[in-house]
């Protein structure tokens, strides 16, 4: 327990910052209940018409399903690639490991808009060769999302490996276990939590991704954020408020569950 506690001034300032952080999340609730067709505060009566619109308009459901499909594929790709890479780095510690990890982290550090134009170049180049892979295809989006999420997955798996006791691996090796056995039966069970977290984070990042997706899709591969973007740019549709409320509720629930799980595991 820290002995140097925040004083009254810090507490007041922190409350103001906390309000600032929560206010826009709360503001969408009344807007989502407005009976008006346009973005406005409800005056008097409330209506669920914008929630109904989400269900009745097939575009929203299609976008959700597409986002889930892309999220799963890109999460699998980036988790598998990140896991293999991290195992290689941890088990063999080759020379230039730091430089190689630095290279892998580039898509996380480079401004997203530069990654976006880079992936736009890539996918439009591929488009000439194939009609189901490239610009504005779901496979193209899944690959681009993998590029963007793989650094995050790698960081998480490397962090869980760094907390693993090397002697476990040395013992297995001394007893004659091969690389494959050590990786799958000794190391991976010990970093299970890190691998699952990496896969989940990759899925969430892909599910929310908009900066790159805007550059590499036009009419076919409309993910949920892309559809929200279109609704926000053209005329602001209160259905987005309803959707935002649902997304915020899901986020709060997931965070609550995660907090409980972490508390039960007794660590962080």
């Amino acid at each position, binding site marked *: 327990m820290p002995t140097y506690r925040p004083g009254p001034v810090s507490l007041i300032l922190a409350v103001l910052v906390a309000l600032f952080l929560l206010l826009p999340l709360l503001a969408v609730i009344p807007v989502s209940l407005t009976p008006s067709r346009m973005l406005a505060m409800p005056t008097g009566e409330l209506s669920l018409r914008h929630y109904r619109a989400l269900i009745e308009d097939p575009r929203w459901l299609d976008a959700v399903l597409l986002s889930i499909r892309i999220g799963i594929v890109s999460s699998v790709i980036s988790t598998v690639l990140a896991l293999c890479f991290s195992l290689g780095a941890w088990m063999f510690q080759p020379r230039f490991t730091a430089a190689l990890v630095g290279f892998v982290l580039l*898509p996380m550090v480079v401004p997203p808009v530069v990654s976006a134009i880079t992936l736009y170049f890539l996918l439009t180049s591929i488009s000439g060769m194939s009609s189901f892979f490239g610009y504005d295809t779901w496979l193209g989006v899944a690959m681009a999302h993998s590029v963007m999420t793989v650094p995050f997955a790698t960081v998480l798996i490397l962090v869980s490996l760094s907390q693993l006791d090397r002697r476990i691996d040395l013992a297995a090796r001394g007893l004659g276990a091969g690389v494959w056995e050590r990786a799958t039966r000794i190391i991976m069970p010990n970093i299970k939590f890190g691998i699952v977290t990496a896969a989940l984070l990759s899925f969430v990042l892909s599910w929310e991704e908009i900066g790159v997706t805007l550059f590499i899709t036009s009419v076919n591969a409309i993910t949920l954020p892309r559809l929200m973007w279109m609704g926000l740019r053209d005329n602001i549709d209160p259905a987005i408020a309803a959707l935002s409320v649902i997304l915020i509720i899901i986020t709060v629930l997931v965070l609550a569950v995660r907090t409980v799980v972490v508390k039960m595991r007794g660590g962080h």
Partner: protein
Amino acid sequence: MRGTLSDRMGAAVLMAPLLLFLVLAYAWPFLGVVKWSVTLPTPGLGQYGALATDALVQSVFIRTLRIALIVTVVSVAAAYAITMVWVRGSPAQRIIAEFCILVPFWISVLTRAFGWVALLSNRGLINTWLQSIGFISEPLALVRNEFGVIVGMTHFLIPFAVFPLASTMRSLDERVLLAARGLGSSRMRTFWTVFVPMTRSGIIGSAMIVFVFSLGFFVTPAILGGGRSVMIAELIYLRIFQSPDWGLGAAISVVLVLFVGALMALLFRYVRPKQLI
């Protein structure tokens, strides 16, 4: 056994797929973008010359730097206040602060930008309320301008500013603070002359992260700026999809990468990467 052939092959087989993937899907196409910048529409360094002379491009660059600076100062100050409570508050205060930091952090940039539209627009919460109490007769222009962009970006970036600050505030030596208080220094004086200097590396790290992020920020400025307060990233988007002027978009991207790279190099001269997590 280190350094034998099988070990080296093991490392290569495990590490190669990701490296190959990123070379083919990221590094190689980036070189393609660099190629665009010197070949479109005509070969040569014309696009880079245009960057130095084009008034529109320059005004966007200056606006981006100005917004990034304001957002950095405000975000780091706000993050400092809430991090104090998150790291050093009572258990209940810490849980509430953590909730207020992590919930927005996990909510998508689009939802958050939309939340600000719902608050700040002409028929949004703030204007409706101010009009209903008779404080104003005409709605205030709070969004689709630079003010809206700064508010939205600050909101997005505060959690990112929190993490480096939290890490230095957690690791500093308590005894120095107690000594200062014990020697009769007031709370305020201890804070400004002992606590703040001791978290200097966290402040630098946090400011650099926020500043670098703001330079390449796209979604929030595009929605809350409403096309009236265009920043570099949106300019690249417009050059690719609306003009189409791929050469200039590519040249701006290359300059942005070089600029961010230089800033990161500077950052790592002052702060070790480990202090940032």
